[in-house]
């Protein structure tokens, strides 16, 4: 008898809990994996700000985010690259792109006998990834790294094998600095690589580089910082060699803010500015321009305001570069476009 009572009590409690949960506005979102750590933090913290709202985010990848947005199976999407005009033409309500945080990419390498931080020019990076620069003691590399004792060894190029926003940013950068790359390879989440081995994820690239002598790869700045990988300087558009850090990544966005289009669909690689690190990208939330459900609309608008102000404070501690204030101001204006 007693045991039955316990079960009845537990069942009732569960039902009450479910009813309470049901009373919340449930917003579903899906998309990019790169910003997932901060999105998870944001959506969790946001439940304390707006107690009526619950945002569920599935990190299924940018492509999946765009697909689900187009099919209307989520309330909003997220992507590491802006949607193309063709993709937008298939949506019911035009997406508004909201940059959330910034990420940078760094070249990491493992060369026998070299302990210094290397300096890469855009030309050497493009040359290495095109397979034109084949050996570490190439004159081009020697020129920008005087005093470094390069071995006479073949360069083993490593790239991402999984489709990723990271690869999009890397190839987008190479397309901007090398006409030949733009013509023969181009930019996408996966490309037809002229040379090299593919490894899965940041951890795969870092692992393969660490293990293979005389190799080079590219990883996200956050990943390099967290795992203390060695990485090199890259020369930016104004000729300064920069070793990426969060400040120089944010500076890149500030430099690009002046010329930013109203819809934020912009690549900010190779941005102008003396302290702007060149291999940088936004990651975006894709918000429908019309949200039919009033409660969901209120929750999403409240979230966007919070994300642009208090939310930004979480960025640095999780390894993301926060948005520059020029961009925040422009985004605040875009929120009013949501109908």
């Amino acid at each position, binding site marked *: 008898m007693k045991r039955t009572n316990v079960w009845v009590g537990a069942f009732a409690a569960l039902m009450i809990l479910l009813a309470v949960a049901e009373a919340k506005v449930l917003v579903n979102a899906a998309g990019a*994996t790169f910003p997932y750590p901060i999105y998870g933090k944001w959506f969790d913290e946001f439940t304390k700000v707006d107690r009526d709202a619950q945002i569920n985010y599935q990190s*299924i*990848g*940018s*492509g*999946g985010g*765009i*697909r689900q947005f187009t099919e209307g199976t989520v309330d909003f999407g997220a992507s590491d690259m802006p949607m*193309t005009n063709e*993709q937008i033409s298939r949506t019911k309500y035009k997406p508004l792109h909201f940059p959330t945080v910034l990420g940078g990419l760094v070249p990491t390498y493992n060369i026998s006998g070299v302990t210094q931080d290397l300096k890469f020019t855009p030309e050497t990076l493009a040359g290495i990834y095109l397979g034109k620069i084949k050996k570490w003691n190439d004159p081009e590399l020697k020129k920008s790294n005087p005093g470094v004792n390069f071995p006479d060894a*073949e360069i*083993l190029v490593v790239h991402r*094998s*999984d*489709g*990723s*926003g990271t690869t999009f940013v890397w190839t987008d950068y190479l397309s901007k600095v090398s006409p030949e790359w733009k013509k023969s*390879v*181009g*930019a*996408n*989440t*996966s*490309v*037809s*690589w002229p040379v*090299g*081995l*593919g*490894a*899965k994820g940041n951890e*795969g690239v870092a*692992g*393969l580089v660490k*293990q*293979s002598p005389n190799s080079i790869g590219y990883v996200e700045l956050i990943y390099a910082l967290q795992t203390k990988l060695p990485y090199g300087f890259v020369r930016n558009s104004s000729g300064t060699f920069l070793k990426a850090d969060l400040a120089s990544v944010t500076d890149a966005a500030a430099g690009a803010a002046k010329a930013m289009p109203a819809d934020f669909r912009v690549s900010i690689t190779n941005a102008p500015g003396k302290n702007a690190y060149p291999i940088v990208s936004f990651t975006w939330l894709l918000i429908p321009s019309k949200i039919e459900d009033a409660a969901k609309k209120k929750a999403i608008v409240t979230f966007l305001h919070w994300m642009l102000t208090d939310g930004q404070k979480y960025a640095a501690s999780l390894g993301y570069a926060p948005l520059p204030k020029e961009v925040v101001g422009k985004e605040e204006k875009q929120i009013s476009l949501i109908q």
Partner: protein
Amino acid sequence: MATSSVLAAPSPTGARAFLKRLRSGDEVARLITLAFATSILLVTVGLLYELWIGSALARQRFGFGFLTSSAWDPVSERFGALPFIYGTVVTSAVALIIAVPLGLGAAIFLAELAPPRVSSTFTFFIELLAAVPSVIYGLLAIFTLVPLMRTVVEPFLSRTLGFLPIFKGAFYGVGYLTGGVILAIMTLPFIISISREALLEVPTEQREAALALGATRWESTWQVVVPYARLGIFGSIFLALARALGETMAVTMVIGNDPSIRASLFAPGYTIAAIIANEFTEATGEIYLDALVGLGLVLFLLTIVINAVARLLIIATTRRGSTNP
């Protein structure tokens, strides 16, 4: 020699027998199990249908050229399956070449020669291997197998058998050979475990008869017991092959992910399952997505073809065996 013990079950006939079977639930059981079996068939047909529909755009644009083209360029939207088919077949072949002799040998030892206690302990650990998730195999392979292949195995093969085109070229540690080796490790538990069961099923009389005719222990094992258990052993190889063809995570972590066709087993390659897993989540273009689904269809058909060929081989060898007195 008997081909199967299931067929030998006696089946009662006549109306009284039918009623009796119905009363005792036989007919009900038959219908229920029939429904279960049919549902599996429906899933297979449904899968094929979905893959066919999902790859419509790619089939329209590329036609049969999809199977023979070796381009894979998401930027200019040119897609071909050949390097992936090649990689899938080569890694699976390498896996079976390593795993079949090794697995069969181990199974013979465990079933025929080892003391029962040793046999059951070994079997426990081998079956444990089958339960390890493939991503774990992949991770272990990156940190242990890949350096071992690069610094020891590949230089050794190159020194000793380097005159063969399949053992030429630079040592990366990742590539077809490493993919094949990790697949061999992953499929071994299936081969050992099922082959051992099949060998244990062989009636003791068979062994005694062979020994009575003056055969040695090994002759009785190799010439009587193993042929008797042939079907079970082939079944284990099938299962291993299916696993090898479809394995994704572990392979993609060690194969180098380069869609090109090279003769050397040291070279990096790509498999069908690996590229689908790698690129599906971030594929945005319609035709790109359809090409990936098309690769799924190719893998499905490839599996059917390979299985059919293997089954024909078995039928041929079994017939020859069963005509013996």
